[in-house]
């Protein structure tokens, strides 16, 4: 039984072509030159190639998500600081009413999200291990503590979303609505956008869970979990950023 955490190196037969520049003879022609890459082998269908391109795609997705939250954060800061123009005063006045945050609920939700990140990471590592066996053609013996980390993550994700809905309901019962004051609007927008993105991540995780049940290729499941893992951890990090913003920049 392998010790958890051991990496097993696998010998693979190098394949020619595809996937990027190999060793390049310098020929006449502008724009030549080896851009320094050692011969990168592997075709489109290999595990490393698939994983690599999904990782790059996820990086691009994270750039897009970052752009969205940067804009929303800037909006929050500017709206709070600059206020609105008042015609009677003929000047800009700050009309930001600080929001009393339901800290207990928010901390509980944060803990749930952090826990879900943890379980997802454990799932990812367990799958990484299993894959190394799978690629060697060995069906791994059922590990004694083979917990359904993925299912747990999905559950925790839904708990987080439910918790957020509870926070919003709580605020609504206090008469704090989306349109009441810019501080409310931006709180709902920031947390709402985060929740929508998390829902997208949950959909991807459910796809990975379904993969297990539908006998999808293990490699595909592994890629789904790995790449969604990046996304999920990023959203957790983003969540703490939002929490910090609405707390420290309360107005």
């Amino acid at each position: 039984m392998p010790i958890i955490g051991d990496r097993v190196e696998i010998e693979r037969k190098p394949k020619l072509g595809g996937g990027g520049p190999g060793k390049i003879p310098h020929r006449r022609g502008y724009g030549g030159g080896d851009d320094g890459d050692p011969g990168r082998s592997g075709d489109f269908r290999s595990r490393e190639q698939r994983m690599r391109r999904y990782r790059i795609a996820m990086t691009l997705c994270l750039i897009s998500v970052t752009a969205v939250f940067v804009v929303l954060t800037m909006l929050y800061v500017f709206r709070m600081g600059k206020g609105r123009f008042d015609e009677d005063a003929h000047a800009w006045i700050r009309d930001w009413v600080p929001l009393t945050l339901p800290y207990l609920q928010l901390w509980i939700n944060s803990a749930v999200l952090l826990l879900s990140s943890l379980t997802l990471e454990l799932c990812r590592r367990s799958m990484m291990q299993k894959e190394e066996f799978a690629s060697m053609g060995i069906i791994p013996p059922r590990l004694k503590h083979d917990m359904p980390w993925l299912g747990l993550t999905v559950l925790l994700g839904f708990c987080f979303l439910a918790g957020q809905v509870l926070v919003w309901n709580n605020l609504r019962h206090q008469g704090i609505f989306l349109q009441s004051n810019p501080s409310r609007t931006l709180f709902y927008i920031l947390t709402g956008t985060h929740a929508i993105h998390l829902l997208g991540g949950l959909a991807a995780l459910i796809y990975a869970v379904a993969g297990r049940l539908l006998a999808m290729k293990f490699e595909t499941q592994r890629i789904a979990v790995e790449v969604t893992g990046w996304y999920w951890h990023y959203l957790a990090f983003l969540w703490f950023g939002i929490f910090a913003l609405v707390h420290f920049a309360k107005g």
Partner: protein
Amino acid sequence: MPAALRAALLLILAGCLYLFLAPPYWFPAGASMQAIFIDHQFKVALWVLGAMFIAGHLVLAFVLWKKPRTDGKASRGNSWLEIAWTVAVTVIFFWLHVSGNHPFAHMKMSTRLISQPEIEVTGAQFQWYFRYPGADGVFGRTDVQKFAKADEGNPLGIDPADPYGRDDILSSSLVVPVGQPVVLRLKAQDVIHSLFIPAMRVKQDTVPGIEIHSHFTPTQIGTYEIVCSQLCGTGHYKMRAVVRVVSEEEFQQWLTAQKKSSRE
């Protein structure tokens, strides 16, 4: 075919030059201080860019005429040439940019005019309103949602309870004395409009929710068009007014006449 293409480019060049050198319409005569700066800047820009337009097309026609090299030593690039034309273009464009900053600063960042009485300009669908503060020099408070009734002569929603508003003069045209700076406070009631006075070379969007400052100094007596230049709905095309630049005495007479009629 090559000859036809070269001829076409030259014909187009000639046509465009003719269009700009003998245009059927041109800038309306400038009637403000800033028109002098802006018109000069336009002239410089049009000549410089026009020269680049001519040069560009002549060179394009030329390269279509130049005989091909037969020795197979086609040039792939020339770093010195790249640097040279990059520097040249940078110099020309930035010189244009820097020389254009003076009129812009003058238009936007002059603070010494605060002592002039403001005239409030309000854009609404699809009408311009001009309000003068009257003898007390202060504008009355307005609340469009509460008090505005266009058919009862209060389109701006001046608060009837506000004493400062009683002597405010409302006009549908902008009347100003010649030779003195005109300070405008721009507002909008519903959507974004834009105050455009072509003869004065003045354009400033009027944005609901904020008050924007603008100013100009008219230099010639006359009547000039004001149009709206930001799409504001179906009546955008007919949202117009006039600015009447009159002598100082006539302006005072007009003000007095307005005050009299508002009291009656």
